[in-house]
């Protein structure tokens, strides 16, 4: 597909460095966890999870995201997608645990809502560096119970999402969905693996995307050779066993870089 034209209808400040952009396209069939390629014209095109069928939620980190932050309502950007594989939806009687770190809450918030909508019980561990960087707390609260952790203790438990996780009985959950920084995710991975519930868990990975549609190979992970943009970005814990996950990734040139 060619980039669609997405006109910004509304911009919401989620924190000082995170904004949600609502646009005039509706991806009714999107699976929570799927991503779009967002094209800041004249700059670059980058992957972003869909935070709703009609929004992306962006953390300002570099050139392209800064360019997006310059856009006003009525402006537009290019958009290809939704692409990739999202989180598996729970069924009515299942109980799920969501673990969201920072802007990782973006693709997980529609997941929480979808799970709630089918009638499953939703618990969320929401982590951030500090209280004002917590994102979508209300949306997760609307879907069920929320545990909060902040690095500086400004809200909830002082510490990391894993500190909350340690205290939970993981056998009570049917599915566990995780998205956040890779270092956070890998701690969660180890803990969950130790508790022998890895087969319940799904992780949303970040790798460098060029095509976003499974041709170029820049996002492939070792040792499976899976394409994060096509077989992922959401992988089951079992798929990540014996993988590069948590150890290294590849930069735009394909060089290995330590995580």
């Amino acid at each position, binding site marked *: *597909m*060619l*980039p669609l*034209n997405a006109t910004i209808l509304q911009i919401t400040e989620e924190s000082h460095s995170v904004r949600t952009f609502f646009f005039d396209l509706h991806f009714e069939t999107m699976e929570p966890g799927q991503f779009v*390629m967002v*094209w800041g*014209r*004249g*700059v*670059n*095109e*980058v992957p972003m999870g869909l935070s709703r069928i009609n929004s992306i939620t962006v953390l300002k980190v570099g050139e392209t995201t800064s360019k997006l932050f310059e856009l006003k309502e009525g402006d*537009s950007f*290019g958009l*290809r997608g939704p692409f990739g594989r999202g989180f598996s939806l729970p069924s009515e009687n299942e109980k799920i645990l969501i673990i969201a770190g920072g802007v990782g809450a973006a693709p997980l918030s529609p997941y929480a809502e979808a799970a709630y909508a089918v009638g499953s019980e939703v618990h969320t561990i929401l982590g951030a560096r500090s209280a004002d960087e917590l994102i979508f707390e209300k949306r997760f609260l609307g879907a069920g119970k929320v545990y909060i952790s902040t690095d500086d203790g400004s809200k909830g438990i002082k510490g990391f999402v894993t500190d909350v996780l340690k205290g939970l009985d993981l056998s009570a959950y049917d599915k566990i969905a995780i998205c956040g920084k890779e270092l956070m995710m890998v701690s969660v991975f180890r803990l969950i693996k130790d508790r022998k519930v890895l087969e319940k868990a799904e992780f949303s990975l970040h790798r460098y*995307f*060029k*095509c976003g*549609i*499974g*041709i*170029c*190979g*820049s996002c*492939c*992970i*070792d*040792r*499976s*050779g*899976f*394409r994060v943009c096509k077989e992922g970005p959401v992988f089951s814990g079992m798929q990540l066993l014996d993988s590069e996950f948590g150890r290294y990734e*590849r*930069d*735009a*040139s*394909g*060089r*290995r870089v330590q995580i």
Partner: protein
Amino acid sequence: MYVLTGLKMKNPTILAAGILGTTGASLCRVALEGGANAVVTKSIGCMPKKGHPNPSIIQLDCGFLNAMGLPNPSYQGFLQELKIAKKDSGVPVIASIFGGNVVEFMEVAEGLLPGKPDAFELNVSCPHSEGYGAAVGSNPCLVEAITAAVKDVVNVPVWVKLTPNVSDITSIGTAAESGGADAVVAINTLKGMAIDIESGYPILGNRSGGLSGKAVKPVAVKCIYDLYATLKIPVIGVGGVSCWQDAVEMMMAGAAAVQVGSAVYERIDIFSEINTGIKAFLQRKSYSDVKKLIGLSHEMV
């Protein structure tokens, strides 16, 4: 068993350069899960390159436009990937290399030798080059010189990949043959471009790029047909193959083997599918051997 420039392959279907070819693991996957009977790596150069800004690939109605900008981790960075591919893929691994001049090509080829590639494929369609600003690949003298130079430093077959963006591809093919190439590969992408009419921006980060996929198949078939009629060395076909019928068509035009690139997007196991399709076709038509297809159309007059 099928032998192509000395490489032993079960069937004549090969992964094209630049598609899922950046990591050893993905090359193995295309061979093991996809059924490719040989794999060509991403084109590798002297220095790490990030490539052009995104969008670097977009899908059109009838194919793909890409302007990757030859991203690669350099031969040093790629060596470990090549070794993985060699160890685990179970099929011949062809190292695609590029350079701006003869010396760079030699450096990369020698640099990758420790990885023991089964053959080299020279991507002489790189736009950064000596020779009055024209692309290396449209200059027969340069193509011959580069081919000869790489042949000199390696002891495995050398394939030369040709660009169709020239007035006469056979003159470039002839140059490669004179330089000692063991085979030519045709075709690389066609120059192309797409514009986002909502904004007026060219869509690719590099503004323009190369066309591949279904759109280019008739162009590829014609190039292969002409090269087969002109050269003595094998012609390896690539460009727009997306089913076994396309592969058969290319072989009838003169391709000794067929590479598949863009179509891997839809299904990695397209290679197995093509192999199965060809086998059934040979049976139905009572051809004793897949080799009977090669260049068949030249005899039909």
